[in-house]
């Protein structure tokens, strides 16, 4: 399988004082293959949105790139200057779908004018008619009403706005789309429509690969091929959907999984986990495993040295006492 995006040892910190940093992304490595949906899940403050932002290669203060590489077609985009990045990479090779559609769209512009502005930002020689023709075609092919283009953002429902944003962000057929909590503010029915739209776009190869970031694991169950779980700025487990969800081997993943509450038979009999404490302060993350202080399995060895991702039963896990699973998936 072709590797579209390779992240190696990425560190991205927020500088909050002369000597003080919030280590939001701290040694993250991952690979995105062509044709796959990679889900990134974790609780608020674990660094998943910062990771998403860092994948653009654009680090806006107070976020700073400390070390590590983001390789897009073999080119490290953390080293490209901002002008070239905006011109050649963003929107064309990699595109972002943010959570809040109301903030992303311009409230004083009809969607059609917004689309024209946006496209000409990337490609000044494009004619207005050409942009609109493309937008109409795309809306049509995705069964979105063309009337939306004539509307102002406030005239659309939250779900429709989010689907509009998905269609607009992908007009240039980017190889990679990074969607950061695109469904979190929506009710379940609109949520499903957005997921279905994304699935159709992958199927039709409008985008090659999708990185889907969310705190809601059941959504990833619907769309992801592989899942990465983040905790305190690091990826602690990465593997296929069934490996990570149904046979978790990191104790944190296991806790997160058993905290999921879904309307399925048998749920009422399940005991919810009790985990003491909260995630560490990312200004001063502890030595060794970052989950150790809350982990029932933790030993002195866990707290002593930094732990790297290691291969275990087909997936990668950042734990020296991973939970064994009965059958390999």
């Amino acid at each position, binding site marked *: 399988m072709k590797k579209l995006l390779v992240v190696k040892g990425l560190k991205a910190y927020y500088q909050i004082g002369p000597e003080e940093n919030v280590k939001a992304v701290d040694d993250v490595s991952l690979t995105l293959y062509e044709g796959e949906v990679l889900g990134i899940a974790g*609780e*608020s403050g674990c660094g998943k949105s910062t990771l998403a932002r860092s994948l653009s290669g654009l680090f806006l203060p107070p976020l700073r790139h400390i070390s590590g590489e983001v390789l897009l077609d073999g080119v490290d985009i953390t080293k490209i200057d901002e002008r070239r990045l905006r011109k050649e990479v963003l929107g064309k090779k990699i595109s972002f779908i943010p959570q809040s559609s109301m903030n992303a769209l311009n409230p004083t512009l009809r969607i059609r004018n917004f689309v024209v502005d946006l496209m000409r930002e990337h490609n000044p020689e494009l004619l207005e008619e050409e942009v609109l023709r493309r937008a109409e075609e795309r809306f049509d*092919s*995705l*069964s979105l009403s063309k009337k939306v283009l004539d509307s102002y953002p406030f005239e659309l429902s939250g779900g429709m706005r989010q689907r509009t944003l998905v269609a607009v962000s992908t007009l240039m057929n980017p190889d990679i789309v990074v969607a950061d909590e695109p469904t979190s503010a929506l*009710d*379940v*029915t609109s*949520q*499903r429509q957005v*997921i*279905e*739209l994304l*699935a*159709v776009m992958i*199927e039709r190869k409008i985008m090659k690969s999708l990185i889907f970031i969310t*705190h*809601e*694991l*059941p*959504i990833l*169950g*619907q*769309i992801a091929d592989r899942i990465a779980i983040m905790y305190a700025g690091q990826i602690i487990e990465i593997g296929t959907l069934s490996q990570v*969800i*149904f046979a978790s081997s990191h104790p944190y993943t296991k*806790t*997160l999984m058993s*905290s*999921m*509450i*879904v*309307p*399925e*038979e048998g*749920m*009422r009999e*399940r005991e*919810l*986990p*009790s*985990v*003491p404490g*909260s995630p560490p302060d990312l200004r001063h993350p502890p030595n060794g495993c970052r989950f150790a202080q809350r982990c029932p399995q933790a030993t002195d060895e866990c707290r002593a040295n930094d732990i790297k991702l290691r291969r275990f039963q087909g997936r990668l896990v950042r734990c020296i006492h991973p939970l064994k699973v009965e059958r390999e998936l």
Partner: protein
Amino acid sequence: MQSDEVILKARNLVKVFGTGKDSVLAVDHISFDIHSGKVVSLVGQSGSGKTTTARMLLNLIKPTEGRIEFQGRDIREFRGRHRLEYWRKVQGIFQDPFGSFNQFFTIKKILKDSLKIIGEKLSEKEKVKLCRAALESVNIDPDEVMDKYPFELSGGQRQRIMIARIFLINPKVVIADEPTSMIDAVLRSNILKLLMKLRDVQGTSIIFITHDIGLAYYLSDYVLIMHRGKIVESGSPEQVIIHPKHPYTRGLINDVPTLHKKWALKEG
């Protein structure tokens, strides 16, 4: 505690906001009973009227039509002292309790003040002892938070302190409006366990207002599904959520992502 006592009763509640052409019918003739020591979930999407219903039950806004009875008495009759008494017996927990706490008071003061509502004469030492016990019952180390201010605590801690306060006041009914929607899954488990402890230990009735069908299924003894101001279906969690009959409920539950069932994602 008689388990089958109806403690709160809503009959034909209607709430209209605004007048004339611009009026909005937020709640449309709903009726239900809340039994003591039970968890009843009011489930609906945004705009379904669930929060308006909560506010009427809390006696914060008046219904346009219909009546609410607390232990057999119309709550409109409660004036002055009796109204305060009602607010002691029927307590609210909201999404982020930050707004409910006085930011200039320490947690110790906030908790001690809630003891005032009970009206019992206690010495300073007894008060502090009760507050510490309440914090311990929600798994918070009293020494860690007693002298802190609300802004110094995380959302999860604030929510647990809200529940500690409920433990102290010991109301008959708690109306919890999306109390866990701002909290991460792992911490949410702790909050839900505390709410169930409240029901099991103190026999408190809980009206749990949520858009999350999974939570309603897990926690409730009885479920009410609201849609456009009406209750469209009600019954036990098994009846309503596993075997729904109303088309709206069916559609809603079908759209909830679960782990074991994949949607048939259609090719457009």
